[in-house]
């Protein structure tokens, strides 16, 4: 309950704010002014714009005439260090982010982004059930039954997989706040109304839950219980009105108790962002992932990302901050942009929560922005994508009309004649109804990469693929307390989602024994592109290596490039500028979306069933880099930036 410090501090010249409360915290409100309802734990269908332009309206209240869209999403990550396993068996030291929410989802290759109902659900601690270092890897291995000596075997056994699926997905550390307690001077009842006078100013607000209790005494018998405050600032015969409050108690006839020795009024223990730091340190330390935890949100979501800086245990000489830069967010705020020079950066043993309304749909990515040549090379890179409103429209066969609905809200409008940065104007092809367009005859769940209005970015399966590379010398120097040379960087491991071939096709999370002797899931994401023959796969490609441009080629399955840098490839007149190729080239800090269509003849309507005669033959195809020296794992002349596309 930290509601007062701002005003107290405001009068002070030097702003020596009182250091209050603990430093690790999480934030995940169950409702906000943007999402005021009680249930923000699912994505409602998109049927109308939230804000409809009304002439002369001025702010967020008067213009809001439509329904609430989107939901609230939360995620917690650690900033620290860890180890990863390279495809030649080498263990590489990382500066890295690790999951502190969605542990089960992350370990299964899914985003660790959760609704409040999941995020705010504390881990059910008991004498036999608690989070331990290395979780969920440790628990998957079976706590107490087989102490980890040499790690567990790949592939994971069915029992291990079952335990993985059942692992905890909430915010690690989330716990009930210890209640703030105030001593009672006098408590009395009139009818059903109880008046409580505290020995200090009463902090309670109307509607707060208040717990009346006492220690060993018994004079409050009858009063003890949990109640809802019905009045504050109550005139009384003892102290100023703001020392008193009232609530209603079904019991009547309780006697006045004055000067009780141990009577107290407390807040109800609540989930309010308070965390148990032991859990965070147990799970978060040495728990780095490469790539960093996957994030996914939907347009209109509010996203609360808590970065908890657990410190880098292998580098006790460093007191590094970490940040999150949401790379490519349009109209970003400087404060939440994660550039330490332009904003603030969270110190070790503390948490910072980033807040964004989801930007326009697209494939973005994120990374630490502290000393970027070092922290990116060392592994602090991850993926985030935003799913389009079009996924949630009620009638997927009328996508053009749905895009017109979006044009009804100035925030989601895209008008080429007034906005040079508008990327998805209404498609030149016109309404589906008149052109044939997207009929949606095969899929029950409609998924699109962008708000295209014509269904052209429809996909059946999606795979985020992040290109990266490591210079083992730089990582070794970084682990051994030596100054690194930036100009000398020479990458030797070439990665897709933090792994080189053949690890890219290992379906399980890779684990690495870290310097704490415990096995951690270090590289949770495989890069196996499974595509049912005749269907379409969306590859969300990004590159965060820090030294050179890299090319990724597709053997056999053509790549249709539909977007660059999280923007649909469409000109201002609405013509799609997609192009088909078998290779794409990205520099560090770029992203691109491609669709792999396993129907050999292009469909005018991507939702049409691929005729049997046009199905691409089942089998294994490849994604690989034609930078041929990158098809290696350091000294091994084999592997590198390569993976399999399995048409099945």
């Amino acid at each position, binding site marked *: 309950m*930290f509601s007062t*410090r701002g*005003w107290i501090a*405001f009068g002070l*010249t030097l*702003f020596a*704010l009182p250091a*209050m409360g603990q*430093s690790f915290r999480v*934030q995940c*409100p169950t409702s906000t*002014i*943007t999402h005021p309802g009680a249930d923000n734990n699912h994505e409602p269908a998109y049927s109308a714009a939230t*804000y409809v332009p009304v002439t002369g309206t*001025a*702010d967020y209240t008067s213009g809001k005439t439509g329904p609430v869209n989107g939901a609230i999403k939360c995620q917690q990550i650690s900033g620290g260090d860890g180890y990863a396993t390279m495809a030649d068996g080498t263990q590489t030291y990382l500066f890295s982010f690790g999951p502190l929410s969605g542990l089960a989802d992350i370990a299964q290759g899914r985003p660790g982004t959760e609704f409040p109902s999941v995020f705010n659900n504390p881990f059910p601690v008991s004498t036999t059930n608690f989070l331990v270092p290395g979780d969920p890897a440790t628990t998957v291995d079976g706590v107490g039954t087989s102490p980890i000596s040499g790690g567990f075997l790949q592939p994971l056994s069915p029992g291990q997989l079952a335990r993985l699926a059942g692992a905890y997905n909430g915010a690690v550390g989330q716990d009930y706040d210890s209640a703030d307690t105030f001593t009672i001077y006098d408590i009395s009842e009139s009818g059903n109304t109880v008046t409580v006078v505290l020995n200090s100013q009463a902090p309670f607000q109307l509607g707060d839950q208040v717990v009346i209790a006492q220690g060993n005494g018994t004079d409050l018998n009858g009063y003890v219980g949990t109640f809802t405050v019905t009045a504050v600032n109550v005139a009384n015969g003892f102290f100023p009105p703001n020392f008193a409050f009232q609530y209603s108690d079904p019991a009547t006839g309780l006697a006045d108790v004055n000067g009780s020795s141990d009577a107290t009024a407390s807040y109800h223990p609540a989930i309010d962002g308070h965390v148990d730091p032991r859990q965070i340190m147990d799970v978060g330390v040495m728990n780095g992932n490469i790539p960093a935890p996957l994030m996914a949100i939907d347009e209109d979501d*509010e996203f*609360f990302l808590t970065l908890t800086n657990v410190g880098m245990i292998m580098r006790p000489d460093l007191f590094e901050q970490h940040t999150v830069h949401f*790379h*490519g967010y349009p*109209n*970003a*705020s*400087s*404060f*939440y942009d994660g*550039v*330490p*020079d*332009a904003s*603030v*950066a969270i110190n070790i043993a503390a948490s*910072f*929560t980033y*807040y964004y309304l989801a*930007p326009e749909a697209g494939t973005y990515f994120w990374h630490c922005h502290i*000393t*970027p*040549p070092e922290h990116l*090379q060392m592994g602090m890179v991850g993926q985030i994508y935003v799913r389009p409103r079009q996924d949630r429209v009620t009638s997927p066969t009328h996508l053009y009309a749905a895009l017109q609905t979006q044009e009804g809200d*100035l*925030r989601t409008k895209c008008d080429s004649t*007034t906005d*040079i*940065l508008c*990327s998805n104007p209404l498609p030149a092809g016109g309404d589906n109804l008149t052109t044939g367009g997207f009929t949606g005859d095969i899929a029950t769940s409609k998924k699109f990469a962008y708000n295209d209005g014509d269904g052209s970015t429809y996909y059946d399966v999606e795979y985020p693929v992040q290109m990266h590379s490591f210079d083992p010398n730089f990582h070794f120097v970084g682990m051994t307390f030596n*100054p690194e040379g*930036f*100009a000398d*960087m020479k990458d030797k491991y070439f990665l897709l989602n933090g792994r080189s071939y053949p690890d890219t096709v290992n379906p399980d999370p890779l684990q690495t024994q870290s310097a704490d002797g415990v096995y951690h899931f270090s590289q949770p994401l495989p890069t196996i592109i499974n595509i049912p023959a005749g269907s379409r796969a969306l590859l969300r490609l990004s590159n965060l290596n*820090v030294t050179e441009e890299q090319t990724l080629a597709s053997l056999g399955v053509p790549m249709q490039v539909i977007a660059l*840098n999280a923007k649909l*490839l469409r*000109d*201002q*007149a609405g*013509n799609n*500028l997609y192009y088909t190729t078998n290779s794409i080239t990205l*520099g560090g*800090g770029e992203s691109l979306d491609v669709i792999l269509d396993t129907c050999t003849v292009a469909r005018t309507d991507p939702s049409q069933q691929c005729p049997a005669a046009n199905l691409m033959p089942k089998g294994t195809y490849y994604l690989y880099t034609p930078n041929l020296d990158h098809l290696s794992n350091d000294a091994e002349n084999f592997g590198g930036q390569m993976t399999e596309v399995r048409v099945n």
Partner: protein
Amino acid sequence: MKRVLPLVAAAAGWLFLSAAQAAAPGITGGTGTPSFDLTAAPAYITQPDGQAVYSWGYGCNTQPAGFVPAAIAPPPTGCPTMQIPGPTLVVTEGDTVTVTLHNNLPTPAGNTSILFPGFILTSVCPAGQQGLLACEAPPGGMVSYTFKAASPGTRAYYSGTQGDLQVEMGLYGAIIVLPASVPTVCGTIGSASDGLPASHPGNNKAARAAWGESDFRLAASAFDHPDTCYDREYLFQFSAIDPNVHVQALAQVTAAGNCTAGAAGCSLSVPTEPYHPTYFLINGRSMPDDMDPNYAAQYPHQPYNGNPHMHPGELVLVRVIGQDRWQHPFHEHGNHVRVLARDGNLITADPTVASNLITYSGAAAGAAALAGPLLFTTTTTPGVAMDGIFYWTGKGLNWDAYGHNPASKDPLATLTCTPDANGYNTSAPAAVNYYEWCQDHDKPLQVHPFGDVAGGGPATLPDPNLFTNGAWYGGSPYLGPNATTRATGPTGTTPPSGTIANPPTSEAGFAFMWHSHDEREITTNNIFPGGMLMMMLVDSREFVIDESN
């Protein structure tokens, strides 16, 4: 890993100068048939680690006809005889341009020349001067090039003689061709019609006048196209230096002495591979030098800076050229860039298809729809020039960036926001919150009220003791000095005043890093920060952007 101490020590006096802005300064050669009298000459350029790097660059043999833009005072010592990048040549579409080059490089360097990619030369090369790619000037000699500036846009020029060495040594520059027929909707600079209509993002003329801000543009539009109007412009040329090449060149030049051109041994044999650059430059300077003023006295051979500023809603023309052998993914924090053109070629949909003609707001007739991509990372590619338009408005933040507080007694905290057809507050050009995104007006960010900023929002900020502030942190999450001082007091939550580059009481802009995303290139000789890095500031209207220094 903190390796900044040497830099911080060195930076005490000049790292955090905050008053220098950028624009795209250049030289002119007269009206109609402009001519430029250039020279190629050696000099030392400086790097922030204290190194002086022996380099070759283009400069002015005689002083140019003029300097542009008019709002920037010409350099006190005139156009130098050597500068990196070379003088930016500013001409107008349709001009017949003559460039004369005098070769004042050391004799052993041999011939030199200029390539003008994208232009068709009409000049005839004198006998004996034709090199492999270009007509060349022998040591001590000269050469002239004449071409018609047939179409507008930004293009590179660079040496066409032994480019692997001469371009690396610094022989490159930019040529900007201004459009001959600026669309009416864009207005005319300095006239009553200057500025876009309110129906189009733009219309910043009135705000500029209200705050007494000068106009630093070279033109009102980048092309003869109504969707290329702009309010502000910057030119960034990316290049790298491998100091070994420069050391070798100097050693061989020195050893050869005053040799005679063509005599045995009067030549250079400088290896340019393996290539191992350690300095990474924007406009010839490394960070933080690039954020010092244009024409700063301490950089006599590096006159151009990189220190972009803008106000919310301003359309900012970004001219970017790759001037070295590598690609540099240039990441613009804050928003996307609409690519207008590559090498001066405007990218549009096919104008012969009627449905591809769209009528831009305020324009009289349809024009071909722009078709360049929208990018957050604009890769600079060797020899390639790009024109693009960027803006920042804060649209969709979901909180009031100005921290307005209806309950405040401060009149600036209770300003109104009247949305135009696009949702922006453009009806009151003199207001601090000109161009505010009205849908989020008064919408709080913070859960708890903090200072004179309303509570009730979604986010709780950590105790300030728990985070570290950056030198460009404006002091609060909010935009502008009024919002920041209301939120946190006159010092903000920044470090002790006087060491910050974005003071809470006078600027408090939103700072964004614009940099190469090959992150090792934001270093200077292995020291971070440095290299290809600059801070872009979005300033509220209270802060007067002055690019004249």
